[in-house]
């Protein structure tokens, strides 16, 4: 092996051709004009979310739509480069899927194993049935320790639990430490993406939010300036917080370890600085063994951002010296989902966001248009399990093109499950009237092959008319701002009848 000598190795460091780490874009992007940020879906009690209406507003802001689309597509392409760089990529996906399915079909066993090992290492383990119980457990811990301020790392589970609002009402200050999540907190918005929470904002939007909330220069929208200002303003809050909260990406039953992946190191700051450390963890995050962990760590950031690993992959197996560590294992509907025959494998999700980055509807409409904690393809499956009526329109915000399924590192059949929800919603009468009409028309046509063939064989083929009706109605976000391809001059059946069928002497 060359270079065992320290002095040789310390010479002439190589230079990177391209910065492919963290969320960094591999192509230069820059918003050109200031444009007001479109706001997300309006939430009106249990009324079904008008995703298409919110998407229309997003598309009506062309600068936002263009940047959003370009940025996410860049992440998708970076992901592809990483995938092609690893010969065993498909093996890893298969392993990840098999490990998760094994863990989920033995979930009680692995949860108990984790609990036993974590307790043996000095971790306090709590169990929460739902969002309310999760919030109450943490509040009582904070009250016991006299905590006035909590620093927090990004966690979708706490978003699910409405944690920030709850703490605000309870008089505990919560400070987000992830830059994107902090931007969203200061702007009083939910994260719009599981990995890049403020991806729908332009630099000018951030400048406006920071000027309003942190007192920065409203005319300076330089990204380095904004990031530095946030660092300087947040640091003192971190240093004298009395508790820190993180989520977890993976939980290892065998060792009682939980793993947190970030690029900013903010989870480590939150966990390691204050005396009290808390982690909120969904029960589906558990994997059996340490040797399973590299499969997921190798897939997660590559799928999410196109970098080989996050800058920080942190492992917590017990409290630090003089510290106290509490883990809250949260169900909040997961155990119910486990029993849904068509949808239980959605629990394999590792929240990499790859399905969002590749989804044409998500890229064009922005995550806030979904009006739910989880947006994009995986959200369309998970959200209706939380509230079937409120999220009844979401499974229609998809082209069912299958791209999400192709990129998913744990091989969830995402587009089939979305189609599955459409069926379930139709059967349980959760379809809005307009969709019922469309489904009935299309269903009738599609279930009668001869009729379908006649329809598409007419000069005004169905590709022009039926899909236009289905694609360009107000309910299908995807149709806004795009054109269907020109219909072929003849249909496949016509071509087949004219060519192959005659040769074989059979009628079509």
């Amino acid at each position, binding site marked *: 092996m060359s270079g065992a000598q*320290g*002095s040789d190795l310390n010479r002439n460091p190589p230079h990177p051709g391209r910065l492919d780490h963290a969320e960094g*874009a591999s192509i230069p992007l820059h918003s050109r004009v200031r444009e007001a940020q479109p706001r997300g879906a309006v939430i009106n009690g249990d009324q079904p979310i008008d995703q298409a209406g919110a998407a229309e507003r997003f598309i009506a802001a062309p600068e936002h739509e263009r940047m959003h689309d370009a940025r996410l597509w860049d992440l998708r392409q970076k992901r592809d480069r990483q995938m092609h760089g690893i010969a065993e990529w498909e093996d890893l996906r298969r392993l990840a899927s098999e490990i998760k399915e094994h863990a989920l079909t033995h979930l009680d066993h692995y949860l108990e194993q984790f609990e036993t090992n974590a307790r043996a290492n000095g971790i306090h383990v709590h169990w929460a049935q739902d969002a309310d119980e999760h919030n109450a457990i943490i509040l009582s811990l904070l009250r016991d320790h006299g905590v006035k301020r909590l620093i927090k790392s990004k966690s979708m589970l706490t978003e699910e639990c409405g944690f920030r609002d709850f703490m605000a009402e309870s008089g505990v200050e919560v400070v987000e430490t992830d830059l994107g999540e902090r931007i969203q907190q200061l702007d009083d918005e939910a994260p719009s993406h599981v990995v890049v929470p403020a991806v729908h904002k332009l630099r000018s939007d951030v400048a406006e939010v920071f000027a309003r909330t942190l007192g920065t220069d409203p005319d300076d929208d330089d990204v380095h300036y904004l990031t530095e200002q946030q*660092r300087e303003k947040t640091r003192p809050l971190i240093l004298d917080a009395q508790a820190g909260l993180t989520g977890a990406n993976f939980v290892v039953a065998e060792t009682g370890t939980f793993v947190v992946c970030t690029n900013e190191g903010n989870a480590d700051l939150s966990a390691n600085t204050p005396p009290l450390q808390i982690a909120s963890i969904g029960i589906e995050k558990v994997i059996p063994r340490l040797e*399973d962990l590299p499969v997921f760590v190798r897939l997660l950031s590559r799928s999410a951002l196109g970098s080989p690993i996050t800058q920080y992959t942190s492992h917590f197996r017990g409290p630090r010296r003089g510290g106290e560590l509490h883990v809250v294992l949260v169900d909040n509907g997961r155990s119910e989902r486990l029993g849904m025959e068509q949808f239980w494998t959605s629990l394999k999700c590792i929240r990499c966001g790859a399905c969002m980055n590749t989804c044409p509807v998500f890229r064009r409409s922005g995550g806030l248009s979904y009006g739910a904690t989880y947006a994009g393809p995986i959200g369309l499956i998970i959200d209706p399990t939380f509230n079937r009526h409120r999220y009844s329109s979401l499974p229609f915000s998809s082209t069912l093109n299958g791209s999400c399924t192709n990129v998913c590192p744990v091989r969830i059949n995402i587009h089939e499950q979305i189609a599955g929800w459409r069926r379930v919603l139709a059967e349980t009468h959760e379809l809005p009237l307009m969709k019922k009409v469309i489904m009935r028309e299309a269903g009738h046509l599609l279930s009668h092959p001869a009729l379908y063939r006649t329809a598409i064989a007419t000069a005004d083929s169905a590709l022009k008319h039926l899909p236009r009706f289905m694609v360009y109605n107000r309910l299908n976000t995807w149709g806004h701002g795009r054109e269907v391809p020109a219909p072929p001059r003849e249909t496949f059946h016509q071509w087949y009848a004219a060519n192959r069928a005659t040769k074989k002497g059979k009628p079509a």
Partner: protein
Amino acid sequence: MSSREDILARVRAHKPALARPLPQVPFFDPPPGTDLPATFRESFVRMGGTLPDCGQDDPLDVVRRIMSTAPVTCSRVPEIRGNRSLSDDTPPASLADIDIGVVRASFGVAETGSVCLTEEDLLVNTLGYLPQHLIVLLDPARIVSNLHRAYQRPEWRSMHYAVLQSGPSATADIEGVLVHGAQGVRSLRLFFVPGHDG
């Protein structure tokens, strides 16, 4: 305890009764003869870390020279002395004014350019995050090929805290523009220095 019992009971009642065996995970080793330090260097730099050019000099001298330019320095490495002392009861938040911290990594991972820093390497965990800049010494003999090999290491079963750090703190949350030093260290410099036991 009743929530615990309720959750576990629901999980038991709902978990699909399907045979899903736990697969064997191969090591996916690179071809024999792969130059691990060279692979490590390449990955480390791609993740935003730097390897200062030491020329003919002793890397430890180069570290000392860099340290001499900073007002507040703190070292966990016996060969290097900082001007801020560290003991196991140093309050974690008190490390915030350190300009440069120095630590020795337990091992490195060639595939990802990561260094493993444990609670023992750091003594106070915030030494990895609160200083403005971090310098890491790594024994080139302690580089494993990939993450599968990395997770075979003993640290994961003995330490309460260990991090695979790959480059400095980084963000691109605003328009995809990469910025180092979002919250944690602004730079990560690595020097290959054989360990006494390595």
